[in-house]
């Protein structure tokens, strides 16, 4: 059986199933059982089946491309399967299609997305059950002060979820940039809908708008990139773009194709990356993600932690071959800034979900950093591991919120005993994200939870880069280190504040209870994943790393040489990073800072040896800065939003005051002229005749004294007209004859 035909088929099925469930729920949702409870089963069924299909496809893939240790780093590169399903539009040579580009990365993404999504679907059964009956929403007060009572929207939730899964999978399977952009927008709109799920809440709808518009800013850049590529290369299809930018003739080395100057190539890369910045909430467009936590927690877990926000990273990885070193450097810088910034904010946040949101931003920063430094595998690997443990963490927080009815950590505490499963799984999550593990000791190589491996790769790449580019290289490495340290600090701070110690709010504590199995089940599954995600199957070469290694972009194995603009910046080859000398340093330093962060957190919140308040006081300026999120929202409001609104008001005024004024007054002017003319007819004519009459009188003609009346005026005008005409004609005549 030929995998080139079977895998696309399976993936297409896996991709379209959620769409089907979306359509069904959209049409008949409310009629599916009481309050549409069965829609949940439909959606979940769909996603589970597509999960199965995805793994089946992966299986088929492995039959062809089984990773071998011998293959080594980038040795065995599997040919991607690319093709088209149908054509959208065709202009001569230019074709725009719905197609696919499948390699192990695609398949891994499919499996990850569907798997996580399935867990979260199941989790949502429990989490959203209150939507089955009428809901009282205290956060959306009516004008009379009463809390709003509304119908439940259980089925709508799953409907949007299905739509999202469809869009996300489409984004992953997309065979060309345009298709990516299409689903890029679709996931955006899904996140808009789901963030604004509690649409009665002003905060929610604001957050939705913010998310979508900020994303649009990114998309704007992306469109610019698209334009450059489309006009330069005349195609969007990944396969063709790669073959043009890294032709086999040139040994898959980056070179500027005809029709596209190097500058435009850089511009294209930056544009595409700009889209990723928006989607993956990188600095400076990171502001939307924390607000996006207004949505239900499963949404945060699925969309804003595991999948959609990772889409940016995914695209960077997918488009990696086209990025010039300059672009990669920019990516690295942005990632570096982001991870540091977000981590600082996460340290001071008290809303449990916001802490996680900022940590997400920070982790995405890690991935970007890795990719930017040439650590393709590192970035991708971290994408997957992060998906696992971050969704786990979010679901745990959801379970906590569900139990306590609040997001504020200061009101929690001491929940360990009340909700054991949640606390333990969450602890696992924290360990994973902090990168707990045993670094390389003499002989045996490092070993730990999933986060340990991925972060270790990133550190290694950072370190390697700093050695390769001694000039400014170390910055990235140290920033990453600090970030890692802060990560473990705020994660454990979170855990301690939530579960450890004694309850701070008796009322909350008394109501708290362990969540039902439908919620804890997924927690456990994800916990397992968070532990093992980065491991190979025992006694085999089969695992995430080798699988992704297959998808490594051709020509990047030996790193990325310097570009035209920055000739001396080179992205080192990744496999060098795993040389013993390099990796051991990286691992230990990472381990050390993680430990440090853990200890600090314990000291502050676990054992209460140190008082956070003191720290706040001592570092008050910093604290203010962090707690106000570096005043980004205020800054944007000041610099962008208000000016735009003011300008739009001006435009409106221009329309009303200027243009309409002109139009109306020109009309009025004509009328005025008319009136004037009428006036001439009445007054002027008579008066001239009067004048004329008086003149004739005063010339002393032998006339009697005359008085003018209408008829006579007319007659007078007859004569006057005659004379006038005669004079005029004479003048004209002289002019004409003189003129020749």
């Amino acid at each position: 059986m030929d995998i080139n035909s079977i895998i696309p088929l399976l993936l297409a099925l896996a991709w379209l199933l959620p769409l089907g469930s979306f359509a069904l729920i959209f049409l008949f949702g409310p009629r599916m059982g009481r309050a549409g409870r069965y829609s949940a089963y439909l959606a979940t069924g769909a996603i589970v089946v597509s999960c199965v299909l995805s793994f089946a496809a992966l299986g088929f893939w492995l039959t062809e491309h089984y990773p071998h240790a011998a293959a080594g780093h980038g040795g065995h590169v599997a040919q991607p399967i690319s093709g088209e399903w149908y054509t959208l539009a065709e202009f001569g040579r230019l074709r725009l299609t719905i197609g696919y580009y499948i390699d192990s990365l695609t398949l891994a993404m499919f499996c990850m997305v569907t798997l996580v999504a399935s867990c979260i679907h199941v989790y949502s059964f429990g989490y959203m059950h209150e939507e089955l009956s009428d809901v009282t929403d205290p956060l959306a007060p009516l004008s009379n002060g009463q809390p709003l009572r509304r119908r439940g929207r259980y089925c709508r939730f799953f409907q949007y979820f299905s739509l999202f899964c469809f869009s996300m999978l489409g984004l992953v399977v997309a065979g060309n940039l345009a298709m990516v952009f299409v689903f890029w927008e679709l996931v955006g709109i899904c996140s808009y809908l789901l963030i604004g799920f509690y649409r009665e809440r002003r905060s929610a709808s604001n957050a939705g708008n913010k998310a979508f518009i900020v994303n649009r800013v990114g998309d704007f850049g992306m469109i610019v990139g698209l334009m450059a590529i489309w006009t330069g290369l005349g195609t969007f299809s990944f396969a063709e773009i790669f073959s043009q930018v890294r032709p086999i003739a040139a040994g898959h080395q980056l070179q500027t194709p005809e029709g596209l100057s190097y500058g435009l190539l850089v511009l294209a890369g930056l544009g595409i990356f700009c889209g990723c910045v928006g989607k993956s909430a990188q600095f400076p467009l990171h502001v939307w993600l924390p607000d996006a936590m207004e949505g239900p927690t499963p949404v945060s877990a699925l969309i804003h932690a595991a999948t959609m926000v990772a889409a940016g990273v995914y695209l960077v990885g997918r488009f990696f071959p086209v990025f010039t070193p300059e672009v990669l450097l920019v990516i690295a810088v942005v990632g570096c800034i982001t991870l540091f910034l977000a981590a600082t904010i996460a340290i001071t946040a008290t809303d449990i979900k916001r802490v996680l949101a900022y940590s997400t931003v920070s982790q995405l920063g890690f991935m970007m950093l890795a990719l930017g430094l040439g650590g393709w595998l590192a970035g991708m690997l971290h994408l997957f591991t992060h998906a696992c443990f971050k969704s786990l963490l979010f679901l745990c927080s959801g379970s906590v919120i569900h139990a306590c009815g609040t997001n504020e950590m200061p009101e929690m505490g001491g929940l360990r005993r009340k909700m054991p499963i949640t606390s333990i799984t969450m602890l696992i999550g924290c360990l994973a994200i902090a990168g707990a593990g045993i670094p390389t000791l003499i002989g045996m190589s490092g070993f730990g939870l999933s986060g340990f491996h991925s972060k270790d790769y990133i550190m290694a790449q950072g370190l390697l880069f700093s050695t390769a580019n001694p000039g400014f290289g170390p910055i990235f490495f140290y920033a990453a280190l600090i970030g890692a340290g802060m990560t473990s600090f705020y994660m454990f701070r979170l855990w301690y504040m939530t579960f450890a110690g004694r309850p701070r709010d008796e009322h909350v504590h008394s109501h708290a209870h362990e969540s039902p199995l439908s919620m804890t089940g997924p927690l456990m599954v994800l916990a397992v994943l968070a532990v093992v995600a980065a491991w190979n199957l025992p006694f085999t070469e089969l695992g995430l790393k080798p699988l992704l290694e297959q998808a490594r972009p051709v020509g990047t194995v030996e790193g990325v040489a310097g570009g035209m603009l920055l000739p001396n910046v080179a992205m080192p080859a990744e496999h060098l990073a795993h040389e013993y000398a390099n990796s051991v340093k990286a691992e230990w330093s990472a381990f050390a800072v993680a430990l440090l962060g853990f200890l600090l957190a314990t000291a502050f919140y676990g054992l209460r040896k140190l008082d956070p308040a003191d720290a706040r006081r001592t570092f008050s300026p910093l604290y203010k800065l962090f707690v106000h999120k570096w005043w980004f929202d205020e800054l944007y409001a000041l610099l962008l939003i208000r000016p735009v609104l003011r300008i739009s008001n001006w435009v409106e005024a221009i329309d009303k005051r200027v243009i309409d004024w002109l139009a109306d007054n020109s009309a009025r002017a004509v009328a005025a002229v008319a009136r004037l003319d009428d006036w001439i007819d009445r007054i002027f004519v008579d008066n001239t005749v009067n004048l004329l009459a008086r003149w004739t009188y005063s010339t002393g003609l032998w006339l009697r004294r005359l008085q003018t009346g209408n008829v006579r005026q007319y007659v007078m005008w007859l004569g006057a007209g005659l004379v006038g005409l005669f004079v005029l004609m004479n003048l004209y005549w002289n002019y004409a004859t003189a003129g020749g």
Partner: protein
Amino acid sequence: MSLFTEPIGLSHFLVVGAVLFVCGVICMATKRNVLGVLMGIELVLNGANLNFVAFGSSVLRPAGTEGIGMDGQMIALFVIVLAAAEAAVALAIALSYYHAHATVDVDRGDELKG
């Protein structure tokens, strides 16, 4: 030499005709009485008439030039008739005007304007 010294010729008639014409116009333009105005009309027409007759006469014509000959006199006759008819009509209108306004002062008729 001026008009006054030279023997009576075509130009004298034309001058008189012109004077009549101008007088007529001025009379029309200055008389408030309808009848006065009508007289002005007559003067104008007769001014023209005089021209025609003068042009028509074979005596006054400078030698060797083509003239309008009898046509001049004929037209003059026609014009006299026309003038009569017009006067009749005008008088009738004046009468109805008098009925309506109880005066023959043309300045009273100023309802229609603008």
